[in-house]
C-alpha cells in the first residue's frame, strides 16, 4: 500500500518535478518567467497535437458512421493525415479580396485564436496543474470566451462581401443567444461551491457518498440539468453541428469564412477546436468533478489522466452528436435558446437555491429533498418542451 502510494505521488507530481528539473537552476526572478513560458509551451503543444488528432478522429468516426473508411492513405491508418493537411494549408495561396480591409482581414483569425488559447490558462488540468490560479477564474474564462464574438464580426466585415457580413450577423445572433443559457447554467455551481476559482470548485466536489459514489455536481438534480444545458449551449457556442448554421458548408459555403483561404482558414478551424476543447474542459471542471477519480480505488491513477479522459469523452460526444442530428433552422435555433434553454436555466437557479437551503435535511427529509429537486427539474422540462413542440408531432421519414 505504502509503495503504491509513493508511486502515485511521484506520478502525480511528475509534471512539477520535470519542470523543476528544467528550471530549478535558474535564479528566482527568472524562474517564474521561464516556468510561465514553459507552461504556455506545454499547453500549446499538447492542445495543438490534440487538435490535429481530433480532426483525424472526427473524420474517421464520421466515416465509419457513414459506412466509409475515412482518410486512410497518409501513413498507417491515416495517422499522418493531420500533418499532410497542415502542409496543404500552409502552402495554399492566401487570397485576400480586393476591397477587403486588409488589416482586419488579417487580425480576425489571429484575435480569435489568441482569445481561445487564453481560456486554457485557468483550466485545472490536474491536482497541481493550473497555469494561472485566479480568484475569479471562471469569470476570466467566460470573459475571454465572450471576446471571440468580436473576431467573428471582424471576419465577416473585413471580407467586403455582403454574404459574409450577413452570415457574420447570423453567427453573432446565435453566439449572443446561446451565451445566456451558457452563463446561467453554471451560476448554480458557483452558488453551491461559493467560489469563482476553478481549483476551489474542483475541491468542493471531492469526497464520496456511501463510500463510493463521487460527489460531483452532475450527480445532483440541479447539476444534471445545468450540465445538460451547458453542453447544449457549448455545442452552439463552438459552432458545432446541429448548431453549425454560421458556417453550414453545404448551404452557406462557410458563412463568414467564405473569403478566407489557406492558413488563415486553418487558423479559424484551429480556434474552433480549441474553443470546443476549452468548453469541454470547463464542463469537466464545473460539473464532472474536474481531475478527480470516479471511484475511490481508482485514485492511484494520476489526476491529469482523469481530466484528459473526461475531456476526451465529452469531445467524442460532440463528434457523435455531429454525425447523428440534422442541422436546425435559424428560427428553430433562436427559439430553442430563448424559449427553452433560458427559462429552464432560470428555473434551475431556483432549484439550486432550494437545494442549498435544505442542505441540513437528513433521513426521510433527504429523500423528500431529492424528490422535490427532481420534480423541479423534470416538470418544467416536460411542460415547456410540450408547449413548444405542440402541433409538431413526431415526424415519420419515409425514405430515410
Amino acid at each position, binding site marked *: 500500500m505504502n509503495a503504491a502510494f509513493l508511486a502515485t505521488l511521484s506520478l502525480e507530481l511528475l509534471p512539477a518535478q520535470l519542470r523543476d528539473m528544467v528550471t530549478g537552476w535558474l535564479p528566482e526572478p527568472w524562474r517564474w518567467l521561464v516556468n510561465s513560458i514553459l507552461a504556455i509551451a506545454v499547453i500549446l503543444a499538447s492542445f495543438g497535437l490534440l487538435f490535429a488528432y481530433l480532426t483525424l478522429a472526427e473524420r474517421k468516426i464520421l466515416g465509419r458512421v457513414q459506412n466509409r473508411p475515412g482518410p486512410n492513405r497518409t501513413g498507417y491508418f491515416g495517422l499522418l493525415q493531420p500533418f499532410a493537411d497542415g502542409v496543404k494549408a500552409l502552402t495554399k495561396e492566401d487570397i485576400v479580396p480586393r476591397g477587403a480591409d486588409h488589416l482586419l482581414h488579417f487580425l480576425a483569425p489571429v484575435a480569435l485564436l489568441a482569445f481561445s488559447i487564453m481560456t486554457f490558462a485557468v483550466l485545472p488540468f490536474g491536482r497541481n496543474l493550473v497555469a494561472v490560479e485566479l*480568484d475569479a477564474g471562471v*469569470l476570466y474564462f467566460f*470573459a475571454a470566451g*465572450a471576446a471571440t*464574438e468580436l473576431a467573428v464580426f471582424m471576419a465577416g466585415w473585413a471580407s467586403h462581401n455582403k454574404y459574409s457580413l450577413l452570415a457574420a450577423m447570423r453567427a453573432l445572433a446565435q453566439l449572443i443567444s446561446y451565451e445566456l443559457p451558457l452563463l446561467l447554467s453554471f451560476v448554480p455551481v458557483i452558488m453551491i461551491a*461559493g*467560489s469563482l476559482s476553478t481549483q476551489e470548485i474542483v475541491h468542493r466536489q471531492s469526497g464520496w457518498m456511501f463510500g463510493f459514489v463521487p460527489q460531483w455536481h452532475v450527480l445532483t438534480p440541479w447539476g444534471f440539468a445545468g450540465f445538460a444545458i451547458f453542453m447544449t449551449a457549448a455545442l452552439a457556442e463552438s459552432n458545432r453541428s446541429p448548431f453549425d448554421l454560421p458556417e453550414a458548408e453545404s448551404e452557406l459555403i462557410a458563412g463568414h469564412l467564405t473569403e478566407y483561404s489557406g492558413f488563415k482558414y486553418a487558423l479559424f478551424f484551429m480556434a474552433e477546436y480549441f474553443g470546443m476543447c476549452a468548453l469541454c474542459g470547463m464542463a469537466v471542471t464545473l460539473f464532472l468533478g474536474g481531475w478527480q477519480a470516479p471511484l475511490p480505488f481508482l485514485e492511484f491513477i494520476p489526476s491529469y489522466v482523469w481530466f484528459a479522459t473526461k475531456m476526451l469523452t465529452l469531445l467524442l460526444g460532440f463528434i457523435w452528436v455531429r454525425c447523428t442530428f440534422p442541422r436546425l433552422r435559424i428560427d428553430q435555433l433562436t427559439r430553442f435558446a430563448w424559449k427553452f434553454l433560458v427559462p429552464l436555466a432560470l428555473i434551475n437557479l431556483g432549484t439550486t437555491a432550494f437545494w442549498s437551503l435544505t442542505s441540513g435535511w437528513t433521513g426521510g427529509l433527504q429523500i423528500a429533498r431529492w424528490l422535490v429537486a427532481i420534480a423541479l427539474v423534470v416538470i418544467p422540462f416536460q411542460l415547456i418542451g410540450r408547449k413548444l413542440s405542440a402541433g409538431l408531432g413526431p415526424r415519420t421519414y419515409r425514405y430515410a
Partner: protein
Amino acid sequence: MTLAFLAIAFVTVAAAAVAMALRNLIHSALLLVFNWAGIAAFYLWAGAEFVAFSQLMVYVGAVSMVVLFAVLLTQRSPQSFREQPDSISRVIGALLVGGAVLGVLFGAVLSSRLAPSAATATPTISVKELGSLLMGPHAAALLIVGVILTVTLIGAVIIASTDHAESGKDES
C-alpha cells in the same frame, strides 16, 4: 511597474483619440473596444481582478456587439461606412472646450496635495469579500441595478422594435 502603467495609459488614450478622429465608423468602434480592453488592463494592473474581467465581459463582449449592430443597422448602403466630415467650426469649438477642460483638470491634479496612501501593502479584495459587500451593505443598490437592467432590456426592445402598422409605410 510604473512603466507598465505608462504603456497601458499611452496605448489606451492613443486608441481613444484615434477612434474619435477616424472617419470610418467600424474602425472607430473596434478601436474603442481595444480602448475598453486597455482600461481592463489598467484595472488588472491596479489589482482589481474582478472589475477587470467584468469590464472585459460587459464592454468587449456585450456593449461592443450592440454598438457594431447599431452601426450596421443605421447605414444606408452597406458600402458607405464613411461619414461626411463634420463642420470645422464644431470641431474647433470642441477642441477648445476639451482643451480647456483638460487644462483645468491637469492643473487641479498637479497642484493639489493629495494625501499619499500610507504606503502599506496593496489593498486586495477577494471575490468573496466583494460578494459579501454586494449582498450586505450594498444590497439595496444591487436590487435597484437589477430593476434598472430589467427595465432597460424591456425598454430597449420596445423602442427598437418595429410596429407593424408603420413598417409597411417605412418600406415604401
